[in-house]
């Protein structure tokens, strides 16, 4: 069995962790153990901030909650086997709470970042106040004292071993999550959330899961903190620890797996030594934080790995796995847009628009600027609410469904400006497209899904050899290649209705010819209904089997290309009228 480079590194790290007490002595190891617990919580900040792109400013809430829970359990059930259940529970409950909070807060259609950060900050301050005031339970300002250690683990070495094991275990869990489809989706949604939604993923739930994981990690740290220190004070819930966790994650390198842990341990140790000797230590740290955020996002961890390694992602093992097939539906999809009105403020975008498609063919939508072409697409993918009218796709009413559900029904879209994930590898892009139509929610935890392949993917790789360079990030591709990549992703989802918005924008004539070729081939092969917004009449003549002309938010005319060209009303809107 071939052992991967990652597994070797992990084994070495674990050996180093285990051997450390022999190098620095029991007492220092015990002190270090405390920072290991903080490091676990910092890993959670890395998951949220470094990977998924939102900033939790109140992780102390979960750490403190777990610490109080574990502390109370240890005091009440000292020596009892119940502790085997209660202490882990003290770690898990914050995770569940975080998940629930995530679902609660990540509900907006648009930008929820600042709200989330402020709410987490407020919650941690609230928790601090609660811990301070609820003396009967938490011991008030002086905290919960006299917490016994974990049963059977009394020595310094034992405490260190527990902390080290928990850190190793947590790091392995996070590493697994990052390798799983879930981790790839987290990275993707940090880069381009709209695109991920349009592949049928509920990004709000994905973010809530990330937050839940971070809550769990903080919970593990907190639950072990109580027996290790013997004392839990309200400070843990409050602002100070929450702020420190963010700083450690940033300085250590928030985007890397172990960066936050590294930051917690290194800075934490430095701080405890320097804080008293160097009065401006905290000011210096704040300045370092700002500089790191502005100029060194890789942090300390970035200094350890050479630049070249950054582009080398874990290459999936050679044997691809056949992905489950999409059900083939015999009849062509039916789309009915019925009297749809869309207004944004005072402006009417779509004016009782009515059109219908029921053939699997290539349709083109043309019309002057402001006719409502892209807005029609936005209505179809669920991103633009309608004020009146109905949209039916294969019998489903679309106007009330959220965008990710509509994508799951089989509507795919390609944007005019290539909408890809710049820092993600080509292989990840194609994998995301494959998961979109096929992966069940729990399957997103299986790393093996990254090896999925379909006959269509093979065919696309034949036509476009650059798609075989699995590890290249999309940012390294040319504009034309990015258009093709996005088109390939749209096709791989094997949608029943494919919406292409100026797919040849900015392409050279050869690239354009290739794209037309692929569109025709996909239409014939899959019998999908394809709708293309186009301005270039030469393209329309090549591609279209049917044309819709939109004007001022309404359908002006439809028919074959020849019929449209012969229609004087259509010509008039392009040339401008005298009266």
């Amino acid at each position, binding site marked *: 069995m071939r052992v991967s480079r990652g597994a070797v590194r992990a084994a070495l790290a674990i050996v180093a962790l285990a051997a450390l007490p022999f190098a620095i002595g029991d007492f220092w190891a015990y002190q270090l153990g405390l920072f290991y617990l903080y490091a676990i919580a910092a890993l959670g900040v890395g998951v949220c901030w470094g990977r998924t*792109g939102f*900033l939790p*400013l109140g992780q102390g809430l979960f750490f403190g909650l777990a610490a109080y829970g574990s502390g109370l359990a240890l005091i009440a059930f000292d020596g009892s086997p119940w502790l085997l259940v209660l202490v882990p529970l003290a770690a898990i409950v914050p995770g569940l709470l975080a998940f629930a909070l995530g679902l*609660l*807060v990540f*509900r*907006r259609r*648009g*930008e*929820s*970042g*600042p*709200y989330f*950060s*402020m*709410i987490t*900050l*407020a*919650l941690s*301050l*609230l928790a601090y*106040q*609660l811990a301070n*005031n609820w003396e009967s339970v938490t011991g008030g300002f002086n905290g919960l004292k006299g917490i016994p250690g974990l049963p059977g683990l009394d020595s310094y070495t034992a405490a260190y071993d527990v902390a080290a094991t928990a850190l190793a275990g947590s790091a392995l869990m996070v590493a697994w999550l990052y390798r799983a489809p879930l981790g790839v989706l987290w990275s993707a949604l940090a880069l381009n959330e709209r695109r991920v939604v349009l592949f049928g993923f509920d990004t709000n739930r994905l973010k809530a899961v990330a937050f839940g994981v971070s809550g769990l990690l903080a919970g593990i740290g907190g639950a072990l903190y109580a027996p290790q220190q013997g004392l839990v004070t309200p400070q843990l819930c409050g*602002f100070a620890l929450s*702020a420190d966790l*963010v*700083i450690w994650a*940033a300085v250590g390198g928030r985007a890397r797996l172990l960066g936050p842990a590294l930051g917690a341990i290194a800075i934490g140790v430095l701080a405890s030594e320097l804080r008293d000797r160097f*009065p*401006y230590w*905290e*000011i210096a*740290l*704040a*300045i370092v*934080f*700002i500089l790191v*955020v*502005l100029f060194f996002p890789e942090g300390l961890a970035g200094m350890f790995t050479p630049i070249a390694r950054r582009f080398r992602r874990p290459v999936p093992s050679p044997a691809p796995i056949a992905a489950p097939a999409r059900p083939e539906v015999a009849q062509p999809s039916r789309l009915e847009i019925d009297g749809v009105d869309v207004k944004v403020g005072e402006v009417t975008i779509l004016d009782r628009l009515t059109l219908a498609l029921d053939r699997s063919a290539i349709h083109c939508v043309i019309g002057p600027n402001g006719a409502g072409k892209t807005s029609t697409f936005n209505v179809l993918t669920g991103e633009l609410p309608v004020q009146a009218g109905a949209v039916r796709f294969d019998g489903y009413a679309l106007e009330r469904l959220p965008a990710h559900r509509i994508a799951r029904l089989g509507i795919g879209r390609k944007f005019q400006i290539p909408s890809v994930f710049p820092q993600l590898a080509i292989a990840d892009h194609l994998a995301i497209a494959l998961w979109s139509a096929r992966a069940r929610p729990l399957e997103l935890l299986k790393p093996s899904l990254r090896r999925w392949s379909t006959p269509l993917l093979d065919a696309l790789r034949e036509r476009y050899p650059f798609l075989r360079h699995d590890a290249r990030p999309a940012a390294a591709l040319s504009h034309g290649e990015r258009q093709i990549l996005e088109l390939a992703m749209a096709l791989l989802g094997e949608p029943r209705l494919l919406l292409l918005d100026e797919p040849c924008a900015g392409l050279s004539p050869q690239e354009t010819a290739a794209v037309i070729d692929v569109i025709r081939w996909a239409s014939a092969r899959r019998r999908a209904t394809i709708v293309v917004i186009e301005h270039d009449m030469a393209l329309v003549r090549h591609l279209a089997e049917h044309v819709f002309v939109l004007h001022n938010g309404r359908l002006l005319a439809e028919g074959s290309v020849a019929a449209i060209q012969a229609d004087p009303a259509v010509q008039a809107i392009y040339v401008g009228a005298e009266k």
Partner: protein
Amino acid sequence: MGSVFVAQALNALFGIAALAIVALGLAVTLGLLGVLNLAHGEVVMIGAYCAYVVQAQGLPYVAAIPLAIAVCAVLGWTVERWLVRPLYQRPFDTLIVTWGLSLLLRKCAEAMFGLGYKSLNEPVSGTLEVLGATYPRYRLLLVLVAVVVLTALVFWYRTSRTGTRIQAMVGNPELASAMGIPVSRYASATFVAGTCLAGLAGVLIAPLVPVQPFMGLDHILMSFFVLVVGGLGSVAGLVTGSTVIGGANSVVSALSDSTGGYFCVLALAILFLWLKPRGLHAR
């Protein structure tokens, strides 16, 4: 009984005015420039410390105002130029950087003044009889100043040439620069206005709260929630938000305790996030 009611009403009015004047600076930077300055609370803190320094030196309290405005203007200009301007297109990064700044400012205050609470004397002491109730003079003064500042600002913004140009810039920055409005200069000036207003608010509230390095946290949160509830970009929103948040906080705090009040404010903010994400007076 009537005098109790009047006293409660005055208290509520004071609470709203205090919230509004503190949130005003954030309303300017967030509402006009779209920048969520997480260090807003710390700028208020700086204003409060300026007042402390002035009072400790034995100078008249009014001197705190020009001092706070000068300090906050310099701070605002520097922050806009070096931290905010490069990140206008990346609001998430602005959030993080201003959060780091808030940390830095807090630590600097700690280094300069220590962690302990500083208590200031009210510059105008005594009470006044209003409609049968007696109420502290200074608080009434604060309400008056808040009303004057808000009114003057709105009036200036709506009627002056510069105010109109800033409105143009906020609504359509590309057209504004195409018409010759120096957008970066105006953006910088707007940001500085926001920080100066925050500093002024700090001077005003300093005698009424314990002045300590961590005081800013409550203010940024409250100001943010006021804007979430009330809506960005209008004074009506600011006042409505202050009324709702301030009102809820006082009522619930009186019934349970301050933690309960806090919890209620948080619950309200989340509710508004769901139901009316752009606030009551959306632009």
